[in-house]
């Protein structure tokens, strides 16, 4: 059991690969039912954010144990332009493009923990976790 997947994100096909690998790893970590779909959907949103804003980056999916809690950890990292106003980007329905503005705030709704750090000119790192209940 590898318990870690690193998926380079360069094309929209990589978004599909990332969410498929995420689903498999989540299954290995003991998630089942709708949690698998919820995790895969959240991965899809953060991977797409990489394509849309930074062109390329990577998604790293690992075992996310912390204290007594067991779960999955997803990190989406890029070295793109960064997000100028993170607070605004996390507002549900706000979009800089022709989108729904649901991607990142949506991923936050789907997961138990969601952190985003972005530095202008250096890139964006999103770390999100879901615990097994």
């Amino acid at each position, binding site marked *: 059991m590898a318990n870690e997947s690193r998926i380079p994100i360069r*094309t*929209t*096909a990589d*978004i*599909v690969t990332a*969410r*498929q690998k995420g*689903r498999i790893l989540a299954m290995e970590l003991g998630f089942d*039912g*709708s949690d*698998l*779909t*919820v995790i*895969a*959907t959240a991965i*899809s*949103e953060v991977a*797409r954010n990489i394509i849309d804003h930074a062109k390329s980056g990577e998604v790293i999916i690992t075992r996310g144990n912390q204290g007594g809690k067991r779960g999955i950890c997803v990190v989406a990292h890029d070295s793109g332009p960064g997000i100028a106003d993170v607070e605004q980007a996390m507002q*549900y329905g706000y979009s800089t493009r022709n*989108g*729904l503005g*649901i*991607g990142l705030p*949506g991923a936050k*709704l*789907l997961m138990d923990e969601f952190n985003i750090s972005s530095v202008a000119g250096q890139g964006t790192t999103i770390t999100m976790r879901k615990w097994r209940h």
Partner: protein
Amino acid sequence: MRVPILKQGDYLIASVQSVLSDDDLQLLRDDLADRVGRFRSRGVIIDVTVLDVIDSFATRTLRAIAHMLKLRGAHTVIVGIQPDVAFAMVQLGLTLAGVGTALDLEEGLEYLGGRAHRLHEHRSFGSREEDRLGHPLRTGRHSHEHHSSRPRDEDENDHPGHASQRSLEYGQ
């Protein structure tokens, strides 16, 4: 992978066969826009049964397809959204407002109306005796009561997600 599109009478049936990338979805949009004009189609069914994720981009594209085809004179119905997918969509706050949804291909055809209905009966006429008498598994389901004597040639698998998928039928 390109989604195959079948023509059946006045309708087009786009049956998604594998997971779709964003590019595949946009290709589907372009293919449908083209064929609705070419075949003068009145209705389009998009079967998404195999999709294990419908995220914000997929929802936006499906909605755009439906609204675009409406402007071209065709109604669209999305069929086969799985229960877990529906659950994740609701959590994300995604809706298919203004877009028809149905449980499966059979109900999608019914949704689109009479002509496919007649073709459907013709195709399966005399095929299975118990179907003509109404399938016992279906009799307790209100959505089927009004046509319980109609012949059916689709598979008889019950879909556990019936209720949750129904809840997606906003705006109709």
